[in-house]
């Protein structure tokens, strides 16, 4: 019988492997596909001005204007309605009851606000809350709310409402682990809630951002929480007010004119679940929907090209778990750092991107976090250097003999050909990689039992480094690379306990430097889901925080609609 821990372990492995396989196959393999040789994307400031803020969303890739320096930025105008294509339907819209995939979060961000959100670099910052502050050792957090905010039904957003939301999460068997360390909640005054933890919890703000695994951050009206059918009549403080929901068909929201920030530009938004990806793209191409997200590098490349002509707008999302190769550092020849570094130095990532039809979309990685991530730190992560790689392999061969290993992946022919690219580049430096194609379940079993050598993998890196605690720390049972280090353990522990993002970043820099030196993984390219908008739908990339600074416009496949507007 499978125990709970083994079940969770297997689920984590399955998730990681699936993420890797999906990421690697995002490029698609349609021989008739439109070329994805896209123009270089700009990282210039967006061409829209948010109603209440300045703009400099450097994290967003804005391809709206062919020449961002010459043309004056069009000014947003109020009015109009759009239809958004979602990947799937949700079971309901109560954040304390219904578990949402990205599609659910897109709707939720229209109706609700989260206490925190990500800034342009991916750092969590207060959003609906005015401040979220830890004490010295992160064992207590103080949440101070902005004054004068009401839910759509007129109830005030106060400390009692936040406590009611947290309590509903704590009462939920499904979600209570999100607030597992919360021990007591004290209403200090009308706008202040003090949350005491049973242990130091530096990453508390992460679970308040409103994304998968962070639903505790959404604030729903207490009356809605008390209503058994509240999930069918969601009431939040967000930029849009719920109007109607026909499950599996459509959900409509209308502008909240009493929004606590500047009101949204759009009059209304209709969300339509379109589960089939081909149909979703067709619906966008036909103009039936004006916005959707995709992870297909082929499609993103196609729309980036269209963006040049002004017929589409592409906002690249934050980098999620990158494409990667996992080494088992406990077995020869991968227990030698020279071999691991050489294998990384032999990979020309541009050849991989061409195969994945991701040129102009995928970007090289220099560690587990993308170069534009708040958490990124410089390290000795190697660049493409086949001569240097061959020298390292020659040195190893002279000492210990030939470098040969099994390189595992699943049985998808597209991925087998992808593996053959690695195989060829490694052969160029004198390494023999035998491709092993197995069912996913067999690969999972191999990794769980440590029987792997080299394998296409995924699910590590990309987001907040604390999510990688289970993979980098030595004591979790999920450190699949087998590379352990007291330095990394200590840094991951400190990073988890500290509340200040800058202090956490210092700890994670230590981790990245050691990983860049020891190379238990090769990170071969970014994965970004992207929001694809019609040519006249602007402002998806202009998501701004209440203080006017830019926010992260697309997190995973989740985006905000409060700053979106239709060019008339």
């Amino acid at each position, binding site marked *: 019988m499978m125990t709970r821990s083994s079940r969770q372990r297997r689920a984590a492995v399955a998730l990681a492997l699936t993420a890797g396989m999906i990421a690697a196959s995002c490029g698609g393999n349609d021989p008739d596909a439109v070329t994805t040789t896209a123009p270089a994307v700009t990282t210039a400031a967006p061409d829209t001005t948010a109603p209440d803020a300045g703009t400099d969303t450097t994290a967003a890739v804005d391809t709206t204007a062919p020449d961002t320096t010459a043309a004056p930025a069009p000014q947003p105008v109020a009015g109009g309605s759009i239809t958004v294509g979602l990947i799937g339907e949700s079971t309901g819209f109560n954040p304390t*009851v219904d578990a949402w995939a990205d599609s659910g979060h897109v709707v939720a961000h229209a109706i609700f606000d989260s206490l925190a959100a990500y800034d342009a670099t991916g750092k969590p910052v207060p959003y609906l809350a005015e401040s979220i502050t830890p004490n010295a050792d992160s064992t207590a957090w103080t949440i101070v709310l902005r004054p004068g905010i009401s839910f759509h039904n007129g109830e005030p957003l106060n400390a009692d409402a936040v406590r009611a939301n947290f309590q509903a999460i704590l009462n939920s068997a499904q979600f209570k682990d999100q607030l597992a360390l919360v021990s007591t909640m004290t209403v200090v005054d009308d706008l202040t809630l003090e949350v005491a933890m049973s242990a130091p919890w530096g990453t508390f703000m992460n679970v308040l951002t409103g994304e998968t695994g962070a639903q505790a951050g959404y604030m729903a009206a207490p009356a809605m929480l008390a209503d*058994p059918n509240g999930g069918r009549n969601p009431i939040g403080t967000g930029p849009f007010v719920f109007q109607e929901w026909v499950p*599996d*068909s459509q959900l409509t929201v209308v502008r909240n004119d009493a929004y606590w920030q500047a009101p949204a530009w759009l009059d209304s938004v209709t969300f339509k679940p379109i589960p*089939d990806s081909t149909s*979703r793209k067709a619906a966008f191409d036909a103009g*039936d929907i004006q916005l959707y997200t995709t992870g297909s590098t082929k499609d993103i490349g196609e729309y980036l090209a269209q963006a040049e002509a002004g017929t589409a707008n592409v906002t690249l999302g934050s980098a999620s778990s990158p494409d990667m190769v996992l080494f088992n550092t406990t077995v020869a020849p991968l227990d030698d750092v020279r071999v691991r570094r050489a294998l990384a130095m032999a990979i020309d990532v541009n050849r991989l991107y061409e195969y994945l039809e991701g040129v102009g979309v995928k970007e090289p990685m220099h560690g587990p976090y993308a170069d534009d991530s708040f958490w990124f730190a410089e390290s000795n992560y190697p660049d493409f250097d086949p001569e240097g790689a061959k020298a390292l392999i020659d040195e190893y061969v002279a000492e210990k003999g030939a470098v040969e290993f099994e390189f595992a992946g699943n049985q998808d022919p597209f991925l087998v050909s992808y593996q053959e690219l690695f195989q060829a580049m490694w052969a160029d430096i004198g390494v023999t990689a035998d491709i092993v194609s197995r069912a996913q379940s067999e690969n999972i079993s191999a990794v769980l039992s440590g029987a792997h050598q080299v394998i296409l993998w995924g699910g590590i890196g990309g987001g907040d480094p604390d999510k990688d605690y289970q993979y980098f720390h030595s004591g979790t049972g999920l450190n699949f690379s087998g590379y352990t280090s007291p330095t990394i353990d200590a840094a991951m522990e400190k990073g988890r306990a500290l509340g200040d993002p800058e202090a956490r970043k210092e700890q994670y820099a230590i981790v990245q430097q050691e990983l860049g030196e020891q190379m238990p993984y090769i990170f071969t390219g970014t994965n970004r889901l992207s929001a694809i908008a019609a040519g006249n739908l602007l402002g998806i990339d202009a998501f701004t925080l209440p203080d006017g600074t830019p926010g992260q416009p697309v997190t995973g496949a989740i985006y905000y609609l409060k700053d979106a507007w239709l060019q008339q």
Partner: protein
Amino acid sequence: MSRRILRLLAVLVAVTAASFSMVSLLPGDTVTAVLGERASEEDRAAAREELHLDDPLPVRYARWVGGAVTGDLGISYRTRQPVAEALGQRIGVTLELVLLSQLIALALAIPMAVLSALRPGSWLDRTLSGTQLAMLATPTFLVAIALIAIFAVKLGWFATTGYVPLGDGLFANLKSLLLPSLALALEQVALYARVLRTDLIATFDQDFIWHARAKGNSTGRIVLRHAMRPSSIGLVTLAGITLGRMIGGTVLVETIFALPGLGRFTIDAINNRDFMALQGAVVVMTVGFVVLNLVADLLHGVIDPRIRAQRMAAR
């Protein structure tokens, strides 16, 4: 009639009991689907108790039947919506889709079959047979994608996806269902045309047809007044079976065209181990299948007086 109703009830009991047993054999855990992987053992145990998942299968089935006879099909584990209410929201879409597709299929198949049967072996017959073979061989999802690409994306005549309720206007409603209905219909066109063609050819060789010809009746009159009726029994039987089978069997088309129908509801229920919802869907499909076959059976008597006479004699 009462015997038929009894038979319907027997089939319902057999199918729902079988589905109740079978879903319990499916891999996966309802509680995991409801609470997620990370729920504690205590919470999982509490959920199992609340959902009566630890009760013996016959007890659970008896409880479900007790509710079902009063119209209570239980609550969806996943959405917490009453299953009967959820089915009510979706069955109309699927019924409309299926009926429209059958109308299209018959409207195309009957002329094709008549034209073929009038000149069996001719170039027209061979051409139509080849076309029907292509229709049969082309997967429905491919037809659906091609229809979207041509008529929605390229020509812009229809919406790519989505359903417009009848309450928003008949024209808009039919427009939203035309492409999905056509995608479903094409395979049936081939089947119906092949069956009807064969029956018509056999009928055309009957004495009463030669008699009608000898009396100078036109071909059209012979087909419509004399040949169609006795040749339609196979077609009606096949249409009855197909219609019944299609209720709940439209998941592919409903997914591609994003229609909120019974097929998507069923597949979501299966994927999420929402057995209560699945059980409700099984009831609808079973009733639909049995009732439509009953209707087809009754129509046999209407179409062919000989069958009616045989039934009367049997009583």
